[in-house]
């Protein structure tokens, strides 16, 4: 496949011109990861478009496609924050692997620990689209959603077993397992 000199020139010119936007987008994504790690909701709101779309794998408790920072069911935060008691689990180690003037790809780590001490750590390659310097679309590709789902199922069972109020839980997607909502903030999700 030979794109030819003309294509190469066009590509180099375009890439050079878009570098400033690329850098802006990279900075926005770094601030977003910092906001998530530091649980800074205000910063998150400032860095996302109001109509931001999130795409999570459907096999996870917070899976599906949602518009806005709060979806209809349990959110990523409601699921993972109880499993991230210390900075070690909250750390995401984001690494920008690619960027254009419209999209940024970040490789980050999803970490968690159950009440019984089981740890999870897995890579996520996420594709982010930005508009006017703010996040407008996010799609998360976990390396192995089956492993994530297994870990969350185990964590849920441990949480249910140790909970004094087992009614505060919601249905785990594609299974009969109940997932404890330790923040007690979301209604039961009926898939």
């Amino acid at each position: 496949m030979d794109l030819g000199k003309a294509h190469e020139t066009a590509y180099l010119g375009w890439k050079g011109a878009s570098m400033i936007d690329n850098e802006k987008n990279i900075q926005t994504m770094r601030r977003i990861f910092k906001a998530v790690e530091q649980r800074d909701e205000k910063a998150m709101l400032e860095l996302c478009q109001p109509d931001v779309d999130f795409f999570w794998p459907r096999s996870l408790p917070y899976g599906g496609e949602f518009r806005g920072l709060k979806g209809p069911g349990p959110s990523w935060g409601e699921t993972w924050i109880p499993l991230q008691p210390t900075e070690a689990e909250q750390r995401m180690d984001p690494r920008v692997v690619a960027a254009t003037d419209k999209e940024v790809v970040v490789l980050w780590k999803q970490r968690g620990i159950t009440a019984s001490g089981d740890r999870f750590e897995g890579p996520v390659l996420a594709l982010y689209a930005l508009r006017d310097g703010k996040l407008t679309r996010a799609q998360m590709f976990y390396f192995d959603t089956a492993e994530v789902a297994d870990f969350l199922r185990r964590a849920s069972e441990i949480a249910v077993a140790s909970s004094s109020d087992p009614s505060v839980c919601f249905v785990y997607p594609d299974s009969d397992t109940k997932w404890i909502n330790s923040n007690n903030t979301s209604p039961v999700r009926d898939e």
Partner: protein
Amino acid sequence: MSDNFLPGMPRQFCSDRRPIGTAKMEKWTFRITTQPGILLARVRNSTRNRNSAGGRKMSISGWASLLLSVGLFLGVAEFAIPQNPEESKQTDGEAILKKELQNSKTILAIFRAIEERNDAQPLQFFQPDFEIHWPPSLPYGGTFTGLKPSPNGWSATWEPLQPTEAERKMDAQVVSARGDDVVVLWRQRGLSPRGDRFDGEVLSLYRFREGKLARAQMFYFDTTAVATFLARPKRP
């Protein structure tokens, strides 16, 4: 997959273009080509150009010259790349961009070879110690080194489920390239003997070394959905 595909680039850049002239003004030379409605400022030397962005503004006569040049080309002077002639040497930045472009072309050639079941051609694109990472929960999951096909590998698993071109099509798009890394969004498709279809997104991260593919890691959007499809009965 188009031969004209350029990674991450808007589609209007993906056609052939040839310079039809140049326009000089002050310290800049503008190259005029025949693409519509685009004015690009090419950064040849990042430090110098960062300074120039704030300090080296074109005068009124400069702008008039540009408009005149445009007129001379009867309104077809549509794509201009400002170049500082003193900075004509290839910079490190440009070398990196060229490498990114070459890596992107290589990865698309590999995808095409996979779609066309061309087993021989792609070997030249791989490092001998090429490493591939598949999600552990899949039948072909794990980390493998080398190019020897496995009896339970991706090809052995998916080829029986891809009887026609429709399933073999991967629609690979280079999202972007950065240094030695290239990210590709592609589709995994399959058709079971019972007629069940699978069509899911995969975001792959590739690392090159000396122009050859050294590492690949596949991130299916939902491995559970893939595993469920693959676990279905093999016979109708």
